[in-house]
């Protein structure tokens, strides 16, 4: 049994209490209170949780790997939990000025907290039942949040499309779970993988069917290419703060689940799956980056670039057994991408609040109008493109380097590195176009007032991105320990 004082349970209690009590406060209170109070409550809960996770991480040296329980507390889960809580904090802070004029702000903050619990539990869960429940706890609040602007047709349309594909993905996941349960007689991931590694040859097709259902189901959330069609519409129509949560939070939870089930499961099945993941990786990054060039809207362009980044992350997953650096780079890139994408979408929120539109033609002279937002936006775009010395450079270096290393065993893996480098160059073209519009076009403009919450997020993110870019050692060592734990488990 899992103890009541273990870390995930404490996180559920902290975040869940705040999440449940926010709407109750708004009902009990007769006169309307400002959204700042709800903002302070949810921010306090989130800050307390992230400090608690970091404290437990630093204080305890004994670390459990995959366990027989429904939840485990391992380093992989800790990395994902920290990045998701960080994303939730940035989203909450950036939401203050966006949500101030709108009604039902208590429900907005409460749903963000509940969705965050789901993401954190996905990262820690080691049982298929727990994983499914946490997955739905993460998804259902985001369906509502995507349609939060209910007077706005495009918000509603994005929520409806997101809902239909999200519900389909969870239906496919539970079908995959049912096949897995039938084959192995267990729902514990450790047990499942142990039985998968000694499965009969005649049952192998069925277990591959289960794994491909998991790839399809989690791939919908990750935005891999055959399953990506909902993603640009949803990211464009949803409120931009929620887009930050979707792109940086729920997408990364999909990768957390993928590393636990798909990667380890396919290794246990001893099946040559690297080719399949490699093809998906190349298609994902190429289609994402080519489609991004054609866009006229900032959010839609970054949505396609987010699809492209899922492809880069997949390079590391497809080279895993050959080179540890690949998976290490994937984990590092997941962490970096969460911060960079979140910053970019919060900057877009600032643009939307100040000049009411997100078309690229309309942001001329943003560097003079809104200097801090534009600086944060530029830094995050350069980091996404992988310009040294920002953090995106190091993780891309590790990913492409791993593909080159693996190329000495399977020569087609060189193509992963080639496609990755070409796509990075391509992405710099459209990121550079945005930066050029912001700084080198537009005349006779004066500064306009920037929302203060956006400035706070921007300053934090600039320091964070540049800081990790200059000194990436701690996180690289942390990912190294994670890989060590995973290899210990597999051997």
């Amino acid at each position: 049994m899992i103890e009541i004082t273990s870390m995930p349970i404490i996180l559920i209690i902290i975040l869940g209490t705040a999440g449940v009590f926010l709407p109750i406060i708004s009902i009990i209170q007769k006169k309307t209170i400002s959204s700042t109070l709800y903002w302070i409550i949810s921010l306090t809960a989130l800050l307390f949780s992230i400090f608690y996770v970091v404290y437990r991480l630093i204080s305890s040296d004994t670390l459990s790997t995959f366990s027989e329980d429904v939840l485990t507390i391992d380093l992989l889960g800790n990395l994902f939990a920290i990045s998701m809580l960080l994303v939730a904090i940035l989203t909450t802070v950036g939401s203050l000025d966006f949500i101030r004029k709108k009604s039902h702000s208590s429900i907005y903050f409460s749903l963000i907290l509940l969705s965050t619990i789901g993401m954190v539990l996905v990262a820690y869960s080691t049982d298929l039942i727990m994983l499914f429940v946490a997955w739905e706890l993460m998804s259902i609040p985001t369906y509502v949040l995507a349609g939060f602007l209910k007077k706005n047709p495009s918000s509603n349309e994005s929520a409806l499309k997101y809902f239909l594909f999200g519900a389909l993905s969870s239906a496919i996941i539970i079908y995959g779970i049912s096949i897995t349960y039938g084959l192995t007689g267990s729902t514990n991931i450790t047990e499942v993988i142990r039985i998968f590694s000694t499965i009969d040859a005649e049952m192998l097709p069925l277990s591959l069917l289960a794994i491909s259902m998991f790839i399809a189901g989690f791939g919908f959330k990750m935005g891999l290419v055959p399953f990506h069609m909902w993603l640009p519409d949803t990211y464009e129509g949803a409120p931009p703060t929620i887009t930050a949560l979707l792109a940086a939070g729920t997408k990364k939870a999909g990768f957390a689940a993928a590393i636990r089930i798909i990667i380890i499961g396919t290794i246990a099945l001893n099946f040559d799956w690297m080719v399949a993941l490699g093809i998906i990786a190349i298609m994902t990054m190429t289609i994402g980056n080519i489609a991004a060039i054609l866009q006229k809207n900032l959010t839609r362009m970054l949505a396609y670039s987010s699809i492209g980044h899922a492809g880069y992350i997949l390079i590391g997953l497809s080279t895993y057994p050959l080179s540890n650096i690949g998976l290490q780079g994937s984990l590092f890139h997941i962490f970096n991408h969460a911060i960079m994408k979140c910053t970019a979408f919060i900057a877009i929120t600032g643009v939307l609040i100040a000049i009411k539109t997100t078309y690229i033609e309309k942001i001329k002279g943003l560097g003079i109008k809104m200097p801090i937002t534009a600086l944060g936006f530029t830094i995050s775009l350069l980091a996404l493109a992988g310009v040294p010395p920002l953090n995106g450079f190091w993780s891309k270096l590790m990913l492409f380097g791993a593909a080159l290393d693996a190329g000495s065993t399977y020569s087609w893996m060189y193509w992963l590195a080639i496609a990755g480098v070409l796509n990075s160059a391509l992405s710099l073209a459209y990121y550079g176009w945005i930066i050029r519009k912001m700084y080198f076009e537009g005349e006779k403009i004066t500064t306009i007032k920037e929302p203060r919450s956006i400035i706070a997020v921007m300053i934090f993110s600039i320091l964070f991105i540049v800081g990790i870019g200059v000194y990436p050692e701690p996180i690289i060592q942390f990912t190294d320990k994670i890989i060590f734990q995973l290899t210990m488990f597999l051997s």
Partner: protein
Amino acid sequence: MNNTLIDFVIVSITLLSIGIYGLAVKRNAIRMLFAIEIIINAANLNLISFARFLPHSSGQTLTLFSIAIAAAEVAVGLALIIVAYRMYKNIDIAEFRSLKG
């Protein structure tokens, strides 16, 4: 009581095929929602029948969770569809074209 496991699995696969057919062909939001529900119920049937032929019953536990979650999901989905109906007087998702590029 003479049913074997394969009978249940055949029914479940039939339901899965009906669900996928419905999703692929229909463009009405409520029909698509119910096609998804049919897939979830196919999975539930699978889980229950496997649990009957296995020594322990964690499959039935998962089925209970899955039914409750599916209900929550349908509640959210129908709410979104009602808002869409108020706005467009229509729930055909092929008509929703404010987002494209």
